[in-house]
């Protein structure tokens, strides 16, 4: 049974539609990336899932049921804007949040040092929050989100503000939780982390779902419309092929964007006419390219 099912979700603020018919399903052990630019409706979607605001339309089901108080302890939530009590110690702060999720004090006290280690937090349990660096504080908050081993984890832009080392620590952490069977939904502004951690992705654009599916599905959806070729032929000759939309010179080769996968054959014919060539590769667009494509596309 899916941990979370979101069906046909709509939320309007006045005349503006923040979330527009959003659908997805999340199974145990799956990670879903909710991708979108600023104002796309990611946080609003989370807030509806968390029952903070009521949807104007649509349903949300937790393990097949509407949200009840019983689910609080199975949930981990990292809000978009991070916040901790500056005067509290690391231990007290984590302890407070974890107790609110139903954990026993003794268990928390025993587990905190392990978690600090795991996320390489440079702080002792007795340190005050206000003395921590921003990144370390962020990791404390992450620990507070995960320490009770929730079944559903909601992370609103968890990667923002982390350096590359911490980004990979977080990815590892997410994959660990996934292996334990947790379902994770997180939001991000771009596709950078999607390929490494996501099973599914949903892209929102002004509240609408513009992409939805597994990473492979999404990429295949566009076909192999990218050709990377290293050739001595002048660019004009390639551009003259019908169906070549755009040519972008790169350091050693050219990147051709095609209107259709089939155009690739024409390009191949032309560039191999003179025999040997060091590189010819036809690929689906990267997620980043898809993101830019979709984010920039006109509203249909």
């Amino acid at each position: 049974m899916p941990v979370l099912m979101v069906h046909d979700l709509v939320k309007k603020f006045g005349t503006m539609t923040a979330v527009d018919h959003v659908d997805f399903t999340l199974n145990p052990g799956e990670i879903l990336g909710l991708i979108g630019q600023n104002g796309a409706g990611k946080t609003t979607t989370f807030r509806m899932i968390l029952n903070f605001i009521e949807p104007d339309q649509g349903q949300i089901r937790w393990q097949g049921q509407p949200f009840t108080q019983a689910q609080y302890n199975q949930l981990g939530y990292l809000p978009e804007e991070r916040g901790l009590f500056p005067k509290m110690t690391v231990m007290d702060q984590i302890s407070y949040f974890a107790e609110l999720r139903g954990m026993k004090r003794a268990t928390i006290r025993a587990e905190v040092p392990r978690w600090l280690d795991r996320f390489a937090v440079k702080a002792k349990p007795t340190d005050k929050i206000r003395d921590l660096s921003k990144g370390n504080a962020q990791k404390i908050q992450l620990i507070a989100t995960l320490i009770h081993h929730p079944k559903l984890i909601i992370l609103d832009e968890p990667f923002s503000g982390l350096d590359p080392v911490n980004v990979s620590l977080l990815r590892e952490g997410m994959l660990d939780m996934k292996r334990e069977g947790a379902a994770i939904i997180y939001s991000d502004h771009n596709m950078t982390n999607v390929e490494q951690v996501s099973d599914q992705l949903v892209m929102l654009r002004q509240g609408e779902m513009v992409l939805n599916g597994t990473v492979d599905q999404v990429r295949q959806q566009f076909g192999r419309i990218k050709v990377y070729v290293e050739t001595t032929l002048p660019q004009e000759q390639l551009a003259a092929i019908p169906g070549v939309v755009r040519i972008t010179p790169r350091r050693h080769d050219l990147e051709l964007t095609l209107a259709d996968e089939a155009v690739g054959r024409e390009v191949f014919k032309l560039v191999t006419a003179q025999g040997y060539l060091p590189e010819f590769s036809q690929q689906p667009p990267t997620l980043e390219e898809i993101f830019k494509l979709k984010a920039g596309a006109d509203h249909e």
Partner: protein
Amino acid sequence: MSKFRIVFRQVYLKNLKSGTYIWMVLAPLVFLLIGGVITIGIVKTQQPVNVALVTPQAELAPLVASLPKKNDAYQRATKITTEAQAKQALSRSKLDGYAVLTSQNNQMKVSYVSRASGQGLPFSTLDAQFNQLSLQYQAERLQLSGAALQTLLAPIKTTQTTVAFNDQGKAEKRDNNQQVVNTIVATAVSVLMMMFIMMYAGMIASEVAAEKGTRIMEIVLSSINVNTQFIGKIVAILALIMTQLGVYVVLGLVGKPLVTHYLFQAFPAVKSMLSNFKLPGLAAGQLVLTGLFLIVGIMTYTVLAAMLGSLVSTVEQAQQAITPLSMVAVLAYILGIMAGNGVNNPLIKVTAFVPLLSPILAPARVSAEAMSVSAGWLSLLISVVVLVLLYYVSLIFYRANVLVYSDSNLWQSWRASWRILTNRQRQSRP
């Protein structure tokens, strides 16, 4: 542990350890202590004036000896019987002054000598005594009868009565000082009430605003029901009030025997000073009423402050958010001071029953004996009913506000929260 208890414990312990709370609990004790030290200081420096009363004429000696050895005004050095001795004692600062009584041609004469660095002699007391002595002397010399002498010596009789009216409308005797005491007690009640109310209101408002501002509210509300959180906070504040009152009760019980045993023993003057007055606000029934008003009053302001605190998005705005509440409290405080000063117009009479004003006004008026204790209980009942209503109203607004962030001003936030509220109700209708 239930989630209610987790919230309760967190809010309770955090504030219990805070400097603001500790100061608030100690402040009245510090004032009391300072007041006590000053009183003792005054009593202590008021040492009796040492005088010697002497006469060189043997026939006057019995008369002089008949004068009191000690009274409120002075203490006599009875061993000193001659002017020479007195002079010597004066030079050695054993005396503050002396009086020499002589008689010439049956005319009595007193000359006073006092030391510049000593305490001033109580001339009026001494004069009166010597006048009395002179009358007695002349009467004996003229051989007046005992009865005639009595009549002659009888001083004019004066009486002073100030009355206050009790519950049954019966006049009770009071002396003038009592009114002063009433005013002081009523003012103290007003000041303390106002101080406690504002401190607790500020405490809960910044508590709520801080959680909202740090976005901890979002995590907490994804862990527990908003109603549970609200009641956890409110009950924690209630517990803080009870703790504070508990501290006073314990200190009172411990302190009373200390005061009566040691203080009164060491400074009998303090005892006689206090026993002159009936402390109206300190009678058991009124003390309980004042305590309950304190609890109900603070709780009323607390639930409103929680609601107002939920409107703003940062701690810094919390004080601004409770400004309207502060203004009501200040109004109540001013009226309370007026009530303490015996102002008794219809406006003040009515406001002693108005919730938010009554927690300050009613105890002040009861302390000033302008309002009966039973009327005080009625006013308390009204306050309790209104408190329950305000609790639910505040909870509804709190629920709507805590997750709405805006940079707009208070009034706009207020309107936004109202919109959300009416929206929700429309939606919940089928």
